[in-house]
């Protein structure tokens, strides 16, 4: 199935969970946050949250910035 992760199209197996996605991307679940279709996903349910065709996923972390880093 096709989903969009941080603006990039990715092909993932059906019933892929958030935790499996993070493992595949080699992203440690520590100190990051995940949002699916604008809803923040609690880290305690990464293993139980399955992705669906067409989902928009955002994975964020922290970078250097003070004011208006963008």
């Amino acid at each position, binding site marked *: 199935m096709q989903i969009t992760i941080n603006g990039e199209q990715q092909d993932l197996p059906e019933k892929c969970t958030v935790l499996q996605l993070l493992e595949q991307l*080699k992203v440690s679940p520590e100190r990051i*946050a995940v949002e699916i279709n604008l809803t923040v996903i609690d880290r305690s349910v990464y293993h139980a949250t399955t992705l669906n065709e067409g989902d928009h996923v955002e994975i*964020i972390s*922290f*970078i250097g910035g*003070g004011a208006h880093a963008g």
Partner: protein
Amino acid sequence: MPVDTPLVIGGISFRSRLIVGTGKYASFEETRKAVEASGADCVTVAVRRVNILDRNEENLLDYLDPKTYKILPNTAGCYTAEEAIRTARLARSAGVSDMVKLEVIGDQRTLFPDNEALLEATEVLAKEGFIVLPYTNDDPIMARKLVDAGAAVVMPLAAPIGSGLGIRNPYNIQIIMETISVPIIVDAGVGTASDAAIAMELGCDGILMNTAIAGADHPIQMAEAMNHAVTAGRLAYLAGRIPKKLYAQASSPIEGMIE
């Protein structure tokens, strides 16, 4: 002699009255050294997408351990209340802090805040239990409204972000201090150590800065200068300065002069 008490924001006690940004440094190692030299125990960080294509990218928090430093995520770069609220929720979900340095920028050229949107976002996030630190103008009425909306502190700008112009309106900062009872952190506009000292001498509870340190020729040295300036300014505020007078007042006694 007045004894100082630590800065407390939303029940969190701070060792230093200086909060530093982590942007614009040449490397994470330089960031770490500058933060250390500044004496700050709280750093602000921006929220951005993880680079999913290059996983060898280093992580800032490997250099600034959240066990050692209080992490203050910011909503830098957000132009609407919705964007700022979304960013704040994501930041909290990362599990390092309930604090948020709330920025809603109104204009790209001045980077002045959009206070209407800021107030809206403050109210929503405070209700959700965030410790909200809003970046705002040096406007006493706005400061009061932000406190009423649930802001834990008010962070008026001294001058535009990154301008280095110093405290442009000390009188407004003084009025804000008389208007509200939560801590006041000057955020943005400091250029050099004397600017930081002036803000602290006015009685501000703290200062947040980034560019003044990271943009200096020698950031680690400037970080140390800011550390001293904030401490000196705070001590001078507590010690109580002499009044300003137009004419001289001799400091040596006249009695016993040779004739």
